[in-house]
């Protein structure tokens, strides 16, 4: 067991700040690293120490494993927390940490390697008895084998290039008559795209739910799960809204899936926080999709319903401590929803909207948590992820949580850039979301109402026009801005309220 007194956070943005918050609570000193674009980022100002690691592009700074190790050694950090993204699922980096006597807060390099390889992960899950999407684990050898396989797993199926990615070399087969032509087409496309015509076959799950289970494991063989997160609200595989519990879940299903999630983690002797992602169809069949061997963006909703600080647990088990959690004592209390705030223009094809934050007002009060990192005057760099903040609400029931989220979105004001706030509010008002009747096709299905033009009364428009009028006149007459709220123009004579318009 190694006592951790100082942690280098090899990340930026909200997650770097979020990790440092827990470190501060635990009395652990923090070391920030920053690229040239991030000198004034919140994580640099929040940390006890800060080191420059390179130019703005990630590959020259946040992905520079050797440079980050160098900083860790120089600053005498005991451990490195990689956050999510960047080096968090990089086995070579985990190995480099170990070689330099630095604790990598995450699973071992071997586990990262294994779970990062789709075929290997799939085999490990089958061995552990965890259901996977039915199909072949190796490339098919002939068209006959394809027909045979498809007969055994049933239509529809997806034919996928082994070397594939990005949708290339993929064919959906819904009718038996099309099998041969689809296999041929996929093969030829795979050959053209990747120089390798190997394809394999998987059952096609249409309109699935994306449901994941949070797991935590320690070095002593203890593994628990912290229940599910429903992550089906996605736009182009980008999650936008997550919630827990899932409306789809029954007590039985949760028990089964939770058990499989724990089995999956145990199968690879998993240490740390991880997530088992499942596809669930409308008949509640579920299949292992992949394992994320790191903290997820959406981890706060789990923290809110279980009361457990996941980063604290990560740090504790990385230091060799026992997990000290007993599955039967864990519970989900109430309902939590997370909305991701992106700097993007939902009215304009979700175009990224970097720029300078002019004003920001965060929602506060009962049941509201914000995890962000931008501040007024901060210029969002063009080099990194467009997510600027996460808004998490909790309430006793799902209905109340949706009401609270709407209220929080009402209070959240970010000006200077376009954000996804309006779009998120629309999601909260869409009947399919309110009733909980949705799957990964939600955004496509509700595109019309989600993207409809806002109707605002003429009067509201007129108030905007009047505001612009006064701002224009005011800027013509003044130089030095202040933050004080002024009457429309200071030059005008001062009367008290009572002497003028009758207000009632």
């Amino acid at each position, binding site marked *: 067991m190694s006592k951790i007194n100082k942690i280098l956070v090899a990340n930026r943005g909200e997650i770097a700040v979020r990790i440092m918050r827990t470190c501060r609570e635990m009395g652990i000193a923090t070391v920030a690293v920053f690229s040239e674009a991030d000198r004034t980022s919140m994580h640099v100002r929040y940390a006890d120490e800060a080191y420059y690691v390179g130019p703005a592009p990630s590959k020259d700074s946040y992905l520079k494993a050797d440079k980050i190790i160098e900083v860790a050694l120089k600053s005498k950090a005991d451990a490195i927390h990689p956050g999510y993204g960047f080096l968090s699922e990089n086995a070579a980096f985990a190995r480099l940490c170990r070689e330099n006597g630095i604790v990598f807060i995450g699973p071992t390099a071997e586990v990262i390697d294994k779970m990062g390889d789709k075929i290997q992960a799939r085999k490990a899950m089958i061995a552990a008895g965890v259901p996977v999407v039915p199909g072949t684990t190796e490339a098919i050898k002939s068209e006959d084998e394809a027909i045979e396989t498809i007969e055994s797993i049933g239509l529809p199926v997806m034919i996928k290039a082994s070397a594939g990615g990005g949708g290339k070399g993929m064919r959906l087969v819904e009718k038996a008559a099309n099998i041969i032509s689809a296999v041929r087409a996929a093969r030829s496309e795979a050959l053209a795209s990747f120089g390798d015509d190997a394809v394999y076959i998987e059952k096609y799950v249409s309109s699935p739910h994306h449901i994941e289970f949070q797991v935590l494991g320690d070095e002593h063989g203890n593994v628990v799960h912290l229940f599910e997160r429903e992550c089906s609200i996605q736009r182009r595989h980008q999650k936008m809204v997550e919630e827990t519990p899932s409306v789809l879940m029954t007590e039985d299903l949760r028990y089964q899936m939770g058990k499989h999630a724990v089995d999956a983690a145990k199968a690879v002797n998993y240490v740390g926080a991880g997530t088992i992602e499942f596809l669930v169809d409308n008949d509640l069949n579920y299949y292992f999709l992949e394992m994320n061997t790191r903290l997820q963006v959406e981890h706060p909703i789990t923290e809110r319903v279980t009361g457990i600080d996941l980063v604290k647990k990560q740090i504790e088990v990385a230091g060799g401590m026992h997990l000290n959690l007993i599955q039967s004592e864990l519970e989900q209390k109430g309902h939590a929803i997370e909305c991701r705030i992106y*700097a993007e223009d939902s009215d304009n094809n979700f175009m990224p909207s970097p720029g300078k934050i002019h004003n920001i007002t965060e929602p506060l009060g009962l049941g509201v948590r914000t995890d962000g990192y931008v501040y007024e005057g901060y210029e969002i760099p063009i080099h990194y992820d467009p997510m600027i903040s996460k808004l998490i609400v909790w309430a006793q029931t799902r209905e109340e949580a949706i009401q609270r989220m709407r209220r929080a979105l009402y209070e959240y004001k970010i*000006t200077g850039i376009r954000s996804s706030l309006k779009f998120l509010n629309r999601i909260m008002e869409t009947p399919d979301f309110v009733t909980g009747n949705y799957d990964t096709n939600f955004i496509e299905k509700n595109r019309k109402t989600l993207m409809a033009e806002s109707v605002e009364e003429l009067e509201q428009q007129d*108030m905007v026009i009047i505001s612009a009028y006064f701002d224009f006149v005011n*800027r013509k007459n003044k130089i030095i801005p202040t933050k004080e*709220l002024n009457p429309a123009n200071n030059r005008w004579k001062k*009367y008290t309220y009572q002497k003028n318009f009758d207000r009632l």
Partner: protein
Amino acid sequence: MPIEIKLGDRIASVKILNQNENLIEVMVDDKTYNIDLMHNDEGTFSIIESNRSHNISLVPSQKPKTYTAFTLHNTYDLEVIDAEARYIRNRGAGAIAQSEKQITAPMPGKIVKVLVKEGDEVKQGQTAVILSAMKMESEYKVAIDGVVKAVNVSDGDTVESNQVLIEID
């Protein structure tokens, strides 16, 4: 002096009829409002009209006299048309197609690749430049058939919002 303000397709005329400090009688087109307006120099406006509380935030754009306004549910682009602007507008009436002759960056970003060079003949719809911002790449296409008059950027350049990248003639 009434001032005209353009909001989307609408051009509205604004005129102050009466004012006692923050209590103002104002006419927008032919509708008269009695409002209580407070604001600060950062563009935060609080207006009480018939006892309804409105919150509006204005952010000036880089182009002078233009704003982006944030209300509860909407974002508007606004332009103030004063005497000077009216003059320029009238004078420039013939040059409306100017925007079609330029490819401008709609946001700050980094040039991934410039696909045309000066003197190239280009066709409408042809991709001229690829811009990347926040891990997303976008292709920018030529709006009219023509010849490339100027290429103002190179691969790897960082560009500002509204910067002119390519000019077509």
